């Protein structure tokens, strides 16, 4: 449940951004890479718990999973790398290089002004 800590950090960032504004947050968009191992259900639950009693209460959380890019050294193809099945999606070989994983990012929020 590292999602709990991530949810706390999301809330802290949002509250810091909105502290001078009156209203409530209705939607939160985050993105993550593959190595972050974010479980959607756990993340939704953790967010709901962290958001209770804040201006984010009831806000919808959208989680975007950004694929990890691999480049096959055999056929040269750029492909979405599946950590759980690490091979080239075209030729099936497992000689490849992996790009950088996307960071955990708080992308945007939707704010309803009073």
């Amino acid at each position, binding site marked *: 449940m590292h999602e709990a800590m*991530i949810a706390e950090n999301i809330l802290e960032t949002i509250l810091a951004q909105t502290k001078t504004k009156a209203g409530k947050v209705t939607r939160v968009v985050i993105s993550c890479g593959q190595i972050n191992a974010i479980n959607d259900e756990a993340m939704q639950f953790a967010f709901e718990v962290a958001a209770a009693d804040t201006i984010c209460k009831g806000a919808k959380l959208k989680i975007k999973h950004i694929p990890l890019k691999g480049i096959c050294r055999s056929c040269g193809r750029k492909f979405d790398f599946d950590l759980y099945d690490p091979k080239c999606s075209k030729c099936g070989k497992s000689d490849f290089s992996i790009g950088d994983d996307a960071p955990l990012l708080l992308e*945007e929020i939707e704010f309803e002004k009073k």
Partner: protein
Amino acid sequence: MLGVRKNLMKMKIKIGKKILAKNEDFAAVNRKFFKKKNILCINMISSPGSGKTTILEKTIGQLKKKINIAVIEGDLYTKLDAERIRATGVQAIQIETKGACHLNADQITNALHKLDTDNLDIIVIENIGNLVCPSDFDLGETMRVVVLSVAEGDDKCRKYPQSFAKANILLINKTDLLPHLDFDIKKVKKDALKLNKHLKIFEISAKTAAGMKNWFNWLTEPRTPVSP
């Protein structure tokens, strides 16, 4: 005022901030500290029961006359592991996470204040036994070591790829049990290297000391300080 609509205005606010920025800031502080003091800091990650503490006990026993080691112990509630480490005669700081599944960089920053770091060569952080969560949290370490014991099964690299993809070293421990198990060590090495071709792998048994020499040699080999 009856019938007047509340003036609600919806707006999108772009934020684009790293969610774990606070952790990364503390990790950067720690990394800078290790570099300044020329300390090799190792973040040790594994499932519970893989033998991290035993590996440390044996490592300290063998190397403490040559180099100065200290340990930061992460545990959910108990101080058992820190007591085991202190019994070997080196400094150990306990971080009790009260149920949290991983260590954060700020906890390490705090622990460093409690350690006498003068003349230290190596600090080992024994993370919480968990192959998922700790891999997301940079502690500012110089090297990340993942431990896998053969009793856990040979599918762990496939099931928990995150931990292996981010490690520098893989210690395959409890190899003395191999004759009793269907653990395909070649397959594990192949799977691990697929995820991370730079991974250095040592097969060890902390219990019988088989293979431990290679690990000791790696720990004590001269290395150029890493850039922060």
